[in-house]
């Protein structure tokens, strides 16, 4: 593994990546479990390690507003948030994406209130899924560091120019100390040279940003924006490949484990993919094959890649760390169902809710899911309702 081995928690690893990316502007409001990210960056700026403008704002709404302005002015911009903080940014999320303002934002994934809970759910990431931001999910601290660096490359690519979220599970990754390999500053400089903005804000050549756009042009602008996302997958792959050459660490939008010869699989996001893989190894010792499919790239949703992987299974459990109230399925389940709908061979899908608000998700839960998949396979029928694992029943 290339790089220098250090020990950091997820938040510090993200802050270190942002520092090595030589961000020009950090605009942020602290919120648990992301706080350490902006605290660390504030330290870097304060002690002279990082030459950046640190804007301490009074709310996340302002944090993102300032980030949009700085990005349009041509700066390399970073911010971070969690849960309610992201909710407070919501209207500006749309504006950042619509104005094609590259910004990298880390989300320490956390449950939305009520009741107040600072631990991990994916409510916040899912809430941003339609806003036009690109989204990556880190599985461990190493990935949180790597994906933050790669996010700048993708976001600022001329063919993309879109704000990008790096998700890392609250506390599970944000506060967990892990060993990780970091690049030398010079290597990062070569991978991520100074941003070259296209047509930035210029007082000598004024432009109008975000004008009134009624029935005459609004739809055309949305179509133009829609078009960009078709190209993002290709750029992401290029960046993943280049990063692999630099570090030896292989990234792909859809990560697979143990899928060869398995007829059952689970699809999962974030840190729990490691738990699922551990459980799949245990199950394999008992002769039970369970494929594990995890998504590094969540938006744009890697439809073609996922379809190719999942078509070969009989039954697939889609795990959601969130609930979409009153909807026909939870968020990732709806994405996967839609992606598979036009496939020639479709597995039976089972939606599983797990780990809400930081509830433990253990290999035993994965074994329970495997048993449920066996039963669905035997009956040949999809269950109507989602299965909740780790819930106190009775």
């Amino acid at each position, binding site marked *: 593994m290339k790089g220098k081995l250090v020990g950091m928690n997820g938040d510090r690893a993200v802050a270190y990546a942002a520092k090595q990316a030589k961000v020009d502007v950090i605009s942020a409001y602290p919120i648990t479990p992301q706080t350490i990210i902006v605290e660390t960056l504030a330290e870097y700026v304060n002690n002279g390690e990082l030459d950046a403008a640190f804007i301490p704002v009074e709310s996340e709404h302002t944090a993102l507003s300032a980030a949009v302005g700085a990005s349009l002015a041509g700066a390399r911009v970073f911010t971070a948030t969690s849960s309610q903080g992201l909710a407070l940014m919501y209207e500006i999320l749309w504006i950042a994406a*619509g*104005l*094609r*303002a590259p910004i990298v934002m880390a989300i320490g994934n956390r449950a939305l209130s009520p009741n107040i809970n600072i631990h991990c759910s994916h409510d916040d990431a899912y809430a941003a899924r339609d806003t036009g931001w690109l989204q990556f999910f880190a599985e461990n601290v190493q990935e949180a560091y790597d994906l933050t660096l790669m996010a700048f490359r993708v976001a600022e690519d001329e063919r993309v*120019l879109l704000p990008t979220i790096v998700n890392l599970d609250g506390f599970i990754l944000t506060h967990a100390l892990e060993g990780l390999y970091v690049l030398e500053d010079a290597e990062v400089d070569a991978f991520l040279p100074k941003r070259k903005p296209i*047509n930035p804000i210029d007082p000598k050549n*004024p*432009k*109008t*940003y*975000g*004008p009134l*756009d*009624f*029935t*005459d*042009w609004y*739809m*055309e*602008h949305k*179509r*133009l*924006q829609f*078009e*960009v996302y078709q190209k993002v997958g290709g750029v992401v792959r290029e960046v993943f490949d280049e990063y692999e050459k630099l570090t030896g660490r292989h990234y792909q939008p859809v990560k697979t484990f143990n899928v060869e010869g398995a007829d059952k699989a689970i699809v999962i996001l974030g840190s729990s993919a490691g738990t699922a893989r551990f459980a799949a190894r245990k199950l394999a010792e008992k002769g039970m094959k369970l494929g594990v499919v995890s998504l590094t790239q969540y938006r744009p949703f890697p439809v073609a890649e996922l379809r190719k992987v999942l078509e070969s299974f009989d039954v697939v459990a889609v795990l959601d760390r969130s609930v979409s109230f009153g909807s026909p399925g939870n968020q990732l389940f709806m994405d996967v169902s839609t992606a598979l709908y036009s496939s020639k061979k479709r597995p039976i899908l089972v939606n599983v809710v797990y780990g809400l608000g930081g509830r433990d998700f253990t290999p035993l839960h994965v074994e329970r899911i495997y048993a449920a998949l066996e039963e669905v396979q035997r009956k040949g029928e999809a269950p109507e309702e989602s299965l909740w694992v780790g819930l106190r029943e009775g």
Partner: protein
Amino acid sequence: MSEASSFVLKSWREMPPGGIIPVPKTSLLNKTGTWRALKPVINQAKCIRCLMCWVHCPEPAILRGEDDSVAVDYDYCKGCGICANVCPVHAIEMVPEG
């Protein structure tokens, strides 16, 4: 082609990214007629020059001639259809744009 009409883009493919207007101008050049989905067409043969449309047009986008004949200023007509609605002889028809 006037300076203003050079802003009129035909298709989404021709638009600058991010919805940015690269050359901002004053509101005089903001030809609000592009908001229109339906366009009023006056049948001059039926028109009795009562000027009801001219009186009721909220913009005003009905142009009044010296002889009280009327025409539509399509640069500013938003297609609300009030003129067609108040015309006592049904001389104005609202037809879909483009």
